[in-house]
């Protein structure tokens, strides 16, 4: 039992409660960044006690580069960015090795020397990094900073790990929903575009008494020689015939 435990709000140790509030985060966050920010704030506020403020940030791997996407406060955000700038540090190592990494006393740490020196200067004394297991959907790590040596108890670590597990499950769902929404939007834009192009192809076929492939060839050549997108060429063809400037798709939602 540590001093920290008594100060934690009741319910924090209960996985069910943590899970419930994470489900709410999923429902309430309009995008992933907002979700992660709320996650960082939640972890930070649940773990902080008087005299030991915990700063929390989330780093994700995007196109093979680490990016600080969310934080409980400006200090955590700056520390995450600092580490990503150096390209090495406990959080990035935790992410790569897919396991929790605790630096109980930063002053005694011999790895990541450049980063450690700068972080010490910023007032950080201990760091806890817990990767979020997102399966194949992405890579993310929860970074916690304390201004105190041994700022994280064994119970704290277990708590954060449990929390990270629940968060990862929710985050997977968020990522999947976001990806599906993106695909849906792309498809709906494609249908709009295709409607315009199909109409123009039909018009060219009627005018030239040619096949669909030939009509496509004519439009594509016009697009290439004038360096205009095919869709704009098609829209111009339709406008020249009908005077219509906007063509509604038939699959509007």
């Amino acid at each position: 039992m540590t001093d920290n435990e008594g100060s934690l709000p009741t319910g924090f140790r209960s996985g069910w409660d943590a899970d419930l509030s994470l489900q709410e985060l999923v429902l309430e966050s309009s995008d992933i960044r907002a979700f992660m920010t709320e996650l960082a704030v939640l972890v930070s506020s649940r773990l902080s006690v008087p005299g030991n403020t915990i700063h929390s940030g989330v780093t994700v791997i995007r196109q093979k580069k680490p990016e600080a996407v969310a934080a409980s406060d400006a200090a955590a955000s700056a520390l995450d960015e600092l580490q990503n700038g150096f390209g090495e540090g406990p959080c990035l190592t935790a992410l790569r090795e897919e396991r929790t990494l605790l630096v109980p006393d930063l002053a005694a740490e011999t790895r990541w020397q450049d980063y450690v020196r700068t972080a010490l200067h910023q007032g950080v004394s201990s760091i806890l990094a817990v990767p979020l297991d997102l399966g194949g959907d992405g890579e993310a790590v929860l970074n916690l900073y304390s201004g105190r040596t041994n700022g994280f108890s064994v119970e704290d670590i277990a708590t954060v790990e449990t929390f990270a597990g629940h968060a990862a499950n929710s985050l997977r769902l968020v990522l999947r929903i976001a990806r599906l929404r993106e695909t849906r939007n792309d498809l709906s834009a494609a249908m709009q575009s295709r409607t315009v192009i199909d109409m123009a192809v039909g018009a060219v076929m009627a005018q030239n008494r040619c096949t669909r492939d030939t009509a496509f060839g004519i439009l594509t050549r016009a697009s290439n020689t004038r360096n205009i997108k095919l869709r704009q060429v098609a829209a111009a063809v339709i406008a020249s015939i009908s005077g219509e400037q906007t063509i509604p798709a038939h699959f509007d939602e």
Partner: protein
Amino acid sequence: MMNADWMGGPDQLNEADAHRRIAAKRFQASKVTLVELWTYYYGIGGDVDELALDAYLNEALHLPAAQVGLVTLAMNEFIGGDGA
């Protein structure tokens, strides 16, 4: 499948192979995903499904010339860079 009858003679097949290889490399070098490229290609009037496009971009299937033209156009417009 490698040598469909609409492909013409050996010379045209070599040309189609070379064209396909360039398309495959260009796709791999881009950050665009298959579904994104396919959706764009579909949006400009493309006819083949995502699986066929995947096979084409892995140099495992030839597409009709008109579809090859649309795949190239989709890449020019969507991936960007200098057009072919």
